[in-house]
């Protein structure tokens, strides 16, 4: 059977049989892959903690008809270990991993999503920013990579130069007074600025934002994400916001 080797981020695991697990990974060159890790739940497993969610690994698998099988693993970065010691970071990481599962396709290369997720997990493990901000930045950018970049300045419908006061999820972001559909929200201008900063990576502005605008921004990001994914991200409900 053909062997392959790739870099991957472990997204999720499911128990299988007595001591095995099905490992869902986002690989650098093969997109999402599901593979069986045999005996991984035994304390003497040679895989150890390398196949836990959030780990960045160099993995070798052989292809199967339905599921591949993991044969060798080396750790490239054990972000998951540092993240699990901070509860807020762990809940944020869970939402990122779940989103990555929903935004990726099996065996469809998605290198940008891979790099984005690896960077976001590293940021969470380094604890340089509020986990909630890192999560929202990741969600906005992964949506942008998927082709659903929101607009926080110009009108998402007609392109009229902003800033605008209204935000409409279905329209794709900020909307001008002429395009504003009924039911649009009117976030604070600081919230628009925060979301634009998170999308562009302006961390000085994002870190200086206040709690009220972060909460408002998180709500808009969650609504935007769920609209485009067409289903809920369960982990978002349990994310611990500061």
């Amino acid at each position: 059977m053909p062997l392959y080797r790739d870099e991957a981020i472990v997204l999720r695991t499911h128990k299988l049989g007595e001591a095995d697990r099905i490992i869902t990974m986002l690989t650098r060159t093969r997109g999402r892959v599901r593979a069986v890790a045999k005996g991984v739940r035994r304390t003497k497993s040679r895989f150890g903690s390398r196949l836990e969610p959030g780990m960045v690994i160099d993995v070798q698998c052989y292809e199967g008809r339905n599921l591949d099988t993991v044969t060798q693993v080396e750790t490239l970065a054990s972000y998951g270990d540092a993240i699990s010691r901070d509860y807020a970071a762990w809940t944020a990481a869970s939402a990122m991993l779940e989103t990555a599962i929903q935004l990726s396709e099996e065996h469809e290369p998605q290198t940008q999503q891979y790099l984005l997720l690896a960077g976001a997990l590293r940021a969470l493990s380094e604890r340089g920013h509020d986990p909630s901000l890192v999560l929202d930045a990741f969600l906005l950018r992964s949506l942008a990579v998927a082709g659903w970049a929101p607009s926080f300045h110009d009108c998402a419908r007609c392109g009229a130069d902003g800033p605008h006061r209204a935000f409409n999820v279905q329209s794709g972001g900020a909307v001008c007074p002429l395009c504003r559909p009924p039911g649009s929200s009117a976030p604070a201008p600081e919230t628009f600025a925060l979301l634009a900063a998170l999308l562009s990576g302006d961390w000085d502005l994002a870190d200086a934002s206040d709690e009220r605008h972060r909460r408002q921004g998180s709500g808009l990001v969650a609504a935007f994400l769920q609209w485009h994914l067409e289903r809920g991200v369960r982990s978002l409900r349990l994310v611990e916001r500061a």
Partner: protein
Amino acid sequence: MYEGAVQDLIDELGRLPGVGPKSAQRIAFHLLQADAEDVTRLVTALTEVKAKVRFCDQCGNVAQAERCRICADSRRDHTSICVVEEPKDVVAIERTREFRGTYHVLGGAISPIDGVGPDDLRVRELMQRLASGEVQEVIIATDPNLEGEATATYLSRLLRDVGVTVTRLASGLPVGGDLEYADEVTLGRAFEGRRRVDA
């Protein structure tokens, strides 16, 4: 497809965890050929487990009365609680014969991706047990995986102000293994938890 009762039995067996259609068929035909007494014993065991077994009001472990045999045992140390994820973890720790305290079964670990949060576990019941003031130490023995670690992190933060000693089971190298095969996290934790060797 088999007729009536045989197919019904295969279907029911096939709903059990880890039992596929082939295994279900093999078990069904084994039962069909077994002595009536053996089958009756199995039926009685299945009926009794549903009728008699319940969860301990105090710790959440499987029990046949209001309290499990560990919580009801006055010789156990009731000032120490070992928090585990599942009843089978209680059995694993009991096999060591190292722990003489009582247990608290959470019923799983915090797993946001599966929609399991702290409110879905028996965390509130743990806090109620601690309110009596009798307990002096809580040993967190959740699984040594990342969900177990995150659950331990959550619990230790929650118990910080309760006034009890909170400890976590040590992580490290398995006895009988080779050092070269240890992964980085396990080896790192073994270093963190190293102890002085007294000659």
